[in-house]
């Protein structure tokens, strides 16, 4: 204190004590930062431990079915072209859909319609590893004709997506008809809780689920592990992440996905069918022209019938049984109103 007084007398010097104002400012700053740090620490405090991530526990399902769409018409339509006639895919799709009352039963005016073909592989249309581009185009056209505001064509490919989309021929044909073709990009995937038996939380290709109506347009083909795949397995394209682990329990995975995604309509492309070396193929000798389109709202029934095309039987495909037991559809398609056209 003595020092302070003496400096007051001699004027400010290097040893001068701070004035009251400065003292308050400095002490206040110290206190402010301390309290601020303490508050931030309290708010951001992590107690540690292995607590499970708390996501909303509700099971998420994407159901696009149209109630009462099929009153009085066929529940499954099988359009076959004659072997000798020059079959146009568009005509077959139209025949099949007309048997089910036409696309207008499934697509309303102003709908955003997602068409989900199989664009999994870098293969040409002749290899029948991807959905036939003409079938996709026919479905897109039907959707537009039924009044869809927007038609989106998308899939999560296995090979380089740009190559798959271009070389499958689907990109050009869908684009030419005015559809939005959306390639899978990392930022389009969000984590969703499906709470399936083996699939719990997975990243989902949001483009495929942000829609009013979803039309599943798979290709029927042989699969070395699952034996035959088409409609139900096509939902693999919805998933992101490391989907190579799904094969360890492929049947339950397929059933879980089919539980999660309930499409408005299924149009199975069996114009040319890969009968061996599926799912990728690559050899034209492994394919067989069958000139068939299967339309249905029942994914299980469509697959149960489709597998007969390559000589499989529904009892050999465990995922059909799982789907049947879960009430996703019926593996006994003969119980449905089936029309062959």
């Amino acid at each position, binding site marked *: 204190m003595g020092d302070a007084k003496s400096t007051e007398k001699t004027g400010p010097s290097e040893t001068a004590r701070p004035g009251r104002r400065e003292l308050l400012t400095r002490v206040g700053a110290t206190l402010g930062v301390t309290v601020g740090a303490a508050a931030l620490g309290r708010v951001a405090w992590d107690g540690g431990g292995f607590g499970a991530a708390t996501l909303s526990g509700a099971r998420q399902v994407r159901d696009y079915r149209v109630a009462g769409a099929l009153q009085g018409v066929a529940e499954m339509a099988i359009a076959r072209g004659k072997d000798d006639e020059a079959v146009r895919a568009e005509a077959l799709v139209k025949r099949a859909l007309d048997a089910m009352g036409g696309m207008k039963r499934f697509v309303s005016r102003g709908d955003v319609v997602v068409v989900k073909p199989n664009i999994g592989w870098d293969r040409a249309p002749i290899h029948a590893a991807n959905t036939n581009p003409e079938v996709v185009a026919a479905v897109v056209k039907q959707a537009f004709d039924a009044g869809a505001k927007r038609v989106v064509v998308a899939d999560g490919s296995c090979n*380089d997506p740009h190559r798959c989309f271009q070389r499958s021929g689907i990109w050009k044909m869908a684009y030419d008809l005015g559809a939005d073709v959306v390639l899978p990009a990392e930022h389009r995937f969000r984590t969703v809780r499906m709470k399936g038996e083996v699939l719990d939380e997975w990243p989902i290709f949001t483009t495929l689920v942000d829609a009013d109506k979803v039309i599943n347009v798979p290709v029927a083909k042989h699969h070395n592990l699952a034996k035959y795949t088409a409609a139900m397995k096509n939902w693999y394209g919805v998933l992101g992440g490391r989907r190579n682990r799904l094969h360890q329990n492929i049947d339950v995975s397929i059933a879980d996905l089919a539980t999660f995604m309930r499409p408005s309509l299924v149009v199975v492309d069996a114009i040319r069918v890969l009968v061996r*070396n599926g799912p990728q193929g690559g050899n034209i000798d492994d394919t067989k022209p069958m000139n068939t389109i299967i339309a249905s709202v029942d994914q299980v029934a469509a697959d149960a019938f489709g597998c007969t095309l390559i000589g499989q039987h529904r009892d050999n495909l465990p995922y059909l049984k799982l789907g049947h037991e879960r009430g996703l559809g019926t593996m006994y398609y003969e119980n449905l109103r089936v029309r062959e056209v």
Partner: protein
Amino acid sequence: MKAAAGPHAGVSLDLTGIEAINAADLLAGHAEPIPWKTGQVGVVAPLDGSADGGQRTTDGGRRTAAGGRRTADSRQRPADSGCASGACGCKATPAKSSSAMATAERSRTAEIAAMLGMADGGTAATPGKKQKIDPKLPGSGIPPRRSIRVLLWVRRVSQVGFLAIFLYFLFQTAFRGNFAASADTQVRLPLPVEAFLLADPFVAAMTLLSTHTVYRGLLWSLGLLALTLVFGRVFCGWICPFGTLHHFFGWILPSRRGRGAARVEANKTRGYQRAKYYLMYAFLLASVGGSAIGGLFDPICVAVRSIGLGVIPAAQYLTGRGLGAAQNIPARPIQAAADHSQDFLAKTVWQSHQFYFHQTWLILFLLVAVLFANRFIPRFWCRVLCPLGSFLGVFARFALFGMEKDHAKCTDCNLCLVNCQGADSPQGGVKWRQDECHVCLNCENACPEDVIKFRILPSRASTTTVPDLQRRTLLATAAAGAAFIPAARVADSLDVNYHAKVIRPPGAVEERAFLERCIRCAECMKVCPNNALHPAFFESGVEGVWTPILIARIGYCEHSCVLCGQVCPTGAIQKITEKEKLGLGTPPVKIGTAFYDHGRCLPWSMQTPCIVCEEFCPTSPKAIWVEEVEAPVRDSKPGANGAEPAMKTVKLQRPHVDPALCIGCGACEKVCPVQDQPAVYITSVGESRSKSNVILLENTNYNQKS
């Protein structure tokens, strides 16, 4: 005021009138000839440090005069501006020198310029035409020629334009598909994205020395060589995208101490600028020794590599994090905007998924370091390291376009040096270094005294055309370059202890030929759609740093893709067709062979179904085939009352590789669900480019073309 003249204050006597007297003496023809004013610049050494004693004296004298003049200038400045505002009329008629001598308020420098113009008989300024004097300009106030001012802007536009083209090509070095292409359209890039490399004569020279051929598009480099032979190193100052980056950072980065006088010092020609010549000759000799390792330092290669493998993925990562956070904001418009931004960037700048590059941190770090060096030495890279710059510098001696200096008019204001890019001694009193000059024209634009003139076929009286090199150092560095290659090759050669993970891209030529050609430009890594190709670190030895290797765990070789060969400028990866790669009619291109680690494979050791590898195997028939087995498996839970867990039988498909069919694409390795160390992996053995790195007897053919 005298203190400002520094150590030479005592020497400077009459400062105010000395210039006028000198000029008048010269006119009368009886003055002592002052070497730096008479144009006898041949005796003045090009480098400050190497002048002998006598010259240093003159140099000192010159400095004195400069100092004195500067003082006088600053004293006169207020008068200057006063004149400009009040009596502009007198400024507009400097040719009337008789009245000029009498007017004390006149800018003294302008006066001298006018007098010297008379004395020289009008070499610089056209005598009949009145020169416009701008009082706002320093020194004499003579503005630079209009053509130079225009050319300066043309240069800036050219620099920005070429950098933009370069970046656009780099962004387009990716296959993003095409909605207009039908299913059978071949997948190729529509643009010549490797054009800058094809125009690079250093790359052409290296590969010419190593392979004795000029590969395809590299013939374009003759164009750049021709440009240099006419205009000098205009590539460095006008075109080079990497040079433009350095130009920009040299402009934006200098610290407080890097401006003004310090910058003038930094822009003087220095001995260390020789380093790039030694480096260039070392690389050329290494090419003679069989390795295009000089690509490590080629500026286009550095730019493609560091921006393509470093800056772009890092920017994508940052943007992805930022926009990803925006997508989680629960407001529809924000989410949509973030989505659209991501879409746009994925379609134009990067791609739809994040790319990763093996050990790319070093590439990025070196880029940052070399850009940061501009803070201390402007255009450090271009002046000290760039082998393309020095290669062009060797040829700049033949240039028809160049600089002429009228030393007599130089007032040593050093404004030319402030923005000099090449550190090529544009200032008066020393010889211009043609081999260092980037022809940026900044010096002529800055010169207030009409000293510097760029023109076609200039006098070479004050020009040094050849690089200033020391023969012993040159021989030593060149020899080091030549000796490096055998030293690197006796380490781990292909035939002795080759790294199993050096898996070269499809279409790559045999390893020795590959090293003769690969310039590490990273075009192949940038274009690879699956992020499969990566810059090697030391996997392929010290010589193979940043050559491409395939890391299948990150990405596999897309079966029908031949883009890496399409963009390779030197033929290290040949331009194969899909037919050749897939082996329609010929044996397919194999880059390695797959192997199973049974201890990690799910069906082999964990009795769990899997065969994703078989599903992804792209060959037809598949190189991976499965064996159906029934295997015992133990239940995970113990039996009742603590009994042994029950045993049951499962049906499994166990995968095998057929080495005759496997092409080593790595799709199996990529998709193997055993994440950290895959149960199926590829190694380079069996690659079709090698005669020795082979498994099977039928592929061992010492007569085949490598």
